[in-house]
């Protein structure tokens, strides 16, 4: 009985251990996506990068 009970709690405890990592991964994903889409992808930064590229090409 006791080993059966141990088995049944194995999965939740694994999830419990992973849960904080999942939360942190999710937040990191949102932050990185925001940075890529809204900052690097923004018109202002794109114009700036084009300017830098043109300068370097000269």
């Amino acid at each position, binding site marked *: 009985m006791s080993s059966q009970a141990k088995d049944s709690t194995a999965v939740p405890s694994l999830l419990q251990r992973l*849960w*904080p*990592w999942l*939360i*942190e991964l*999710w*937040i*990191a994903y*949102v*932050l990185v*996506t*925001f940075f890529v*889409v*809204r900052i690097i992808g923004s018109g202002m930064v794109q114009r700036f990068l084009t300017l830098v590229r043109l300068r370097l090409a000269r």
Partner: protein
Amino acid sequence: MRFLLPVIANLLLLVAAFGLGSLIRPLIPHNVSKLDRLAIIPLAGFGLQGVLLFLLGIIRFSPTVILAVLLPAAVLGANCLLQEMRGTAISSGLAGAPIVPASVIALVLVVTVLGGFAEPIGDIKSDAIAYHYLGPKVWLREGVIRPVLEETHTAFPATVEVQYAALMMIGGQCAPELFSVTALVLILLLAAAAARRAGLDPVEAWWVAALISTMPAVYRGLFGGMIDVIYAAFLILAARIAFDSELPRHYVLVGLFCGFAMGTKYTGLIATPLLIVCVFLFTPNSSRRFSWITAKYLATICFVAAFISSPWYLRNWLTLGCPIYPPPPLLATFFHVKYFSAEAIQSLNKEMLKVGLGMGKGPLSLLLLPFHLAFHPANFENGAGGIGLVPLTFIPFCFRAYRWERFAKALGLFAILMTIAWFYTAQESRYLIPVYVIAAIFGVAGWKYVVRAAPRFGPALSALTVAISILYGLFMIVSARADNIHAAVSTSFAESQKQESIPFLQSFRYLNSEPSVRKVLVLDPLVPTYYLDKEYLKPIGRRGEQSLPGVDSPQEALPDRSKWNITHVMDVRLKDSGFQLSEHPDNLVLIFEAKDQRIYRVVPSP
């Protein structure tokens, strides 16, 4: 005086709103907080003030009538404020405020106050110039509230706009812009109160307010004549009270706020039934089975809401032929409306559909909506800047934040239903402001959980998320208002802004200053007549409205100019088109000419 009059006008309107709002105090549930009362009373007052001014204004809308409403209400309001503030020390409340969110809110308030002193400018594409401020200006000039026939949008329910008229009358053209400060303070107060009711502590409620104040998509709905934040406030208060209602009088108050929402924006007609569904499922009295007592309460909400908003819809039905004007496609088949041809209605509806398409209406778009709102907000009309990252990042965890009690569940369901309705009707960002406010509350609840559940990096990552949201939002808001602030403090910059942004400014200045000008015939539909201080006639509106039945083009109005007492004609040339009149029109003398603009004096025909 330039700054003083708008401030006095707004203070008078606010105190008067407290006065009229004090009349509904017996309806407020006893268990609501002081913070709730400070939001409920003035907002109920603004609703009642709007209805009262409208009802009197359709008969007579003169300065005397406006002051006869505002002054006694202000006396009542001062008394109400004294009673409500008794035993409440504002200084001690602010002393305990967390420094970061309080500073953020203070900064947004300063930006809003300074920007509020700028005179409204822009062309006819600006909603404020096209109708939010045009209606009030015409109503004041004509001494009666009526739809401006060449601009269909002035027939919208206008609970807020009639108060813009009162502000204009007392404080001049800048005063309605300064109303954005009142709107901002009220939405933050009620959001903080709702956050406290949803189980957050005072510091977290401050963070909710700070996040909302830095959401550019919310901020867009409170300046430049926009009424969306006040509409959202009516709706959220209706929900706030509804989910705690126990007695019939509480449901009367819910109905009042639903009615104010319906009297502010047509979208209130969709939101109210959705709220009723949530009330049915979650009121303390509801056993989730249909009972007569539940039916009675729901009927009370419907009846009061319909009664309080009916003046706008009945006026439209009687004078324009349809309660909702301009009519949506379904109603257009049943009602024959005046002053707007079937083709023009069809083209307007097509345009609305196009604008409201957002990022698609398929199931995948619905699934991806939280991502789209966070990462691509500019793809939704008026959504540039978005709502920050807090809702997307933390709402998935708010479900584990605390034991979900009935109020939070009901508020969550209401937000979900409103989002779905918005998604399938018109995906214009401003229309979703009530949901953004609720999302901030749940976002902070999720943040609280994340800090607890992921103690290693969770607090730092969360802090970074919140910081980015606030800083990005502040950047967007400050850059959106930078010109307004500059114009408010520098008259030379204000003048250069006017020269740049007001089309045909020289003509307007000539017509407004010339005493012989009594009534102007404006030929081009795209001339922003908001800037014209004299009486005018515009036969064709920017969306094809026909203010003179039987007149299909501006030139057709010319032969009848003496019938309409026209003294002057304004003709302009827009890009890709010529003047409407020939070089030497009959019985018209050219008296003013500037680049792309001509003004003629009417010579009586022999």
